[in-house]
């Protein structure tokens, strides 16, 4: 049965503007970096870093860790592929969903706007 386990190893956060508050208008961007650590036919271990930034710059939040995908070769491959260029792969959506509460809590503590829980409008995702 397919499953994804997410382990957060590191959280970095910094408030970058004195004037920012929860309602400050801004656009959030999520910079994503994922790379394969280990793979066998039933499991794939990925390192990931999700970095949330705002425009104008209000704060920087970054979460790093490892995600372990278990399932058949086909299920794992399907989780790594996006339906089309405009959508992120399932694995990224899952990692973001599982770490969203951290982003929400830290953003609230830094008194900067929280990101939306769903990934929207991918702009220039590049799969290597």
């Amino acid at each position, binding site marked *: 049965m397919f499953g994804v386990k997410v382990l957060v190893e590191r959280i970095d956060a910094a408030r970058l503007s004195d004037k920012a508050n929860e309602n400050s208008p801004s*656009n*959030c*961007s*999520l*910079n*994503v*970096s*994922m*790379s*394969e650590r280990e*793979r*066998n*036919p039933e499991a*794939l271990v*990925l390192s990931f870093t999700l970095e*949330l930034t705002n425009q104008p710059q209000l704060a920087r939040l970054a979460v790093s860790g490892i995600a372990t995908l278990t399932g058949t*070769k086909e299920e794992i*491959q399907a989780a*790594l592929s996006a339906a089309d260029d405009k959508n*992120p*792969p399932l694995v*990224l959506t899952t990692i973001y969903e599982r770490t969203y509460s951290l982003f929400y809590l830290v953003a609230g503590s830094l008194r900067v706007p929280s*990101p*939306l829980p*769903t*990934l*929207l*409008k*991918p*702009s*220039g*995702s*590049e*799969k*290597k």
Partner: protein
Amino acid sequence: MIPETGVSATSGLLRFYSLTDVRRYLKELLDTYQKEYDKSSNLIGSLLRSDGGKSMEVIMSKGWAKVGSLFVNMSDSEKGSMEVVFQIVNEMKPRVAKTEEVLRAFDSVEGLPIPDDATFLLYLRAGVPERLIVDTINTKPEKFILNGRFKTG
């Protein structure tokens, strides 16, 4: 079902993406066999010692009856179980030896000229590693890397 005594002796093909993974699997397999062998041997040994060394008779049950093609023991469960454990120990001995031998010579396999993207099929026969197929057709998936930027609103 998990066996109460003994190990599940798989027959089949297992796929691996690297020889390191094959070696790790063989080590784990051997470790499992050795632990189970030691456990079962100790059980038999302690029974023989506690019975004053009366030889093998102490673990031979007379309560077996043949029902169809199956032997059923309804009157002497303790000795019946011990007799079977003894049989398992005897069956495990060559399995442990063969797996040890495969692992000992595995350096030679690692020294073969094998393409980087090859995968490996290990054939186990009743739990014993017998053959290794180097598969250059069903190769390893490409290494996954994703770098991107997503707007979240």
